[in-house]
């Protein structure tokens, strides 16, 4: 059975941070369609704050996730970052005391994250947010019996979700107010999620 420890979490987070920083302009451009145009800069700033702290993470998985959440909380109060903090904090609470998670537990972990994000963000499925992307990933890995296929399944799922939602209008947040303009635009949060999954596709993702 494959397992995830804080070393794997640090490695995955480092990849995601590099990816986000590399795509700062893309994310800004997407955000400019329906928002302020600064999401890329915000996430890059958060990534720059997280990266140096990845060598200090606790061996306790829950504590490690809370440490990452706490770093985000020093850098940004944007909606997307607030949702990330809420998700990490919720998962942290249920994983504190563990030094390893089985990859097969990822479905249950995503359920905790989704529940926390939906309650705090007051979003519903179909609102066209990062949560819709996570829901798609959750459904996809739930259908995979083999944990080794989780990342390819997640990659397919997020790409399909992005395509499916592209022409729909946003139903929540700043993007909702953009109204019909949001139809035909990719949600920046979903794209940030897609970029993160793409980054993980190259990560040594488990300990044996």
């Amino acid at each position, binding site marked *: 059975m494959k397992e995830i420890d804080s070393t794997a979490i640090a490695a995955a987070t480092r990849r995601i941070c590099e990816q986000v920083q590399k795509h700062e302009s893309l994310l*800004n451009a997407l955000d*400019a369609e329906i928002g*302020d*145009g*600064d999401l890329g*800069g*915000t996430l890059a700033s958060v990534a720059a704050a997280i990266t140096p702290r990845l060598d200090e993470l606790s061996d306790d998985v829950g504590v490690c996730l809370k440490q990452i959440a*706490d770093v*985000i*909380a*020093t*850098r*940004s*109060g*944007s*909606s*997307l*970052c*607030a*949702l990330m*903090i*809420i998700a990490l*904090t919720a998962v942290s609470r249920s994983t504190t005391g563990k030094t390893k998670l089985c990859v097969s537990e990822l479905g249950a972990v995503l359920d905790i994250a989704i529940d926390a994000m939906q309650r*705090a*963000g007051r979003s519903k499925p179909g609102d066209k947010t990062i949560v819709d992307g996570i829901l798609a990933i959750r459904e996809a890995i739930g259908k995979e019996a083999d944990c080794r296929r989780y990342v390819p399944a997640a990659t397919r799922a997020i790409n399909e979700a992005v395509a499916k939602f592209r022409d729909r209008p946003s139903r*929540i*947040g*700043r993007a*909702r*107010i*953009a*109204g019909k*303009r949001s139809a035909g635009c990719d949600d920046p949060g979903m794209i940030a999620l897609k970029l993160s999954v793409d980054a993980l596709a190259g990560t040594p993702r488990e300990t044996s």
Partner: protein
Amino acid sequence: MKKIINDPADYVDEALVGLMAAYPDTYTLAPGTARVVVRTHAKDRGKVGVVSGGGSGHFPLFAGYVGTGMLDTCAVGDVFAGPAGADVQAALRSADQGAGVLAVIGNYGGDRMTFEMQVGYLQETETPAGMVVVNDDVASAPSDQTENRRGVAGLVPVMKVAGAAAEDGMSLPEVKRVAEKAIDATHSIGVATRACVIPMVGKPTFELDDSSIEMGMGIHGEQGVWRGPLRPADALADEMFDRVTEDAPLRKHDDIAVFCNSLGATPIEELLILYRRISVRLSQSGVTVHRARVGHLATSMEMAGASITFMRLDGELQSLLDAPSACPFWNAFP
């Protein structure tokens, strides 16, 4: 982008340093923070602390309203971005004088989620804490979806009411009650004639050609209810008056406070021209204007445009609105 700034990345922090340099008897930073503005002279122990926070780019909103009779502390975010959770927590803790704290924030997703989380953490330490959310912008959602409405200039009189209630020694539940009453009584609408520029982005937040305006635009440039040719001020005033009062009817003999706000670049003369027609409509409706304030309450940097806010007053709200305050930016209005 033609702004009087240094490095765009330093916009917020340099503005805060300037604020404290200009008004050292009012504003300082919470120790160990760069984005938590607090009163230089803390409130007496035993009184409820009133906290706010939000993105920069709206000055005097939010940090400008720290001061005796208004806010105790304020967490400051990047331009048009919510404050970081760590700063919100520091603002909440700094405001606690032993009687709990009330957060007064605008209805924006990031602010709401961050403050909810941080208020929750504070409550876990057995410090009484609460939160109210201002949603006065009638153009941002229909009347059956007020939970989706934005907080705009109406934040200011609500902060004043909450701050005065706390200064008066009211308990946390009472300060919350009166703040919620103020929120329910407050309605606003704005009109924009020119976009603003977020320093780090470097280009206008939206496109609005020289002859067009947008009715109902939000203070971050959020889409309004229509975009079209510029109209005379009286026509704009009539429409703004009608939209607000259709949502929140004024009754004959109501007492109200009126706030006529510049979004930043619109000069006070234009606000006065707008108010000229607003005051006629108010007079025709039979209400009594207890107080009008005209000026820069809640801006969007160099966005051009204006908003009007009506707060219906009862004796309690009137008394709290009139209570003394030493906040320089509340007292900027005669």
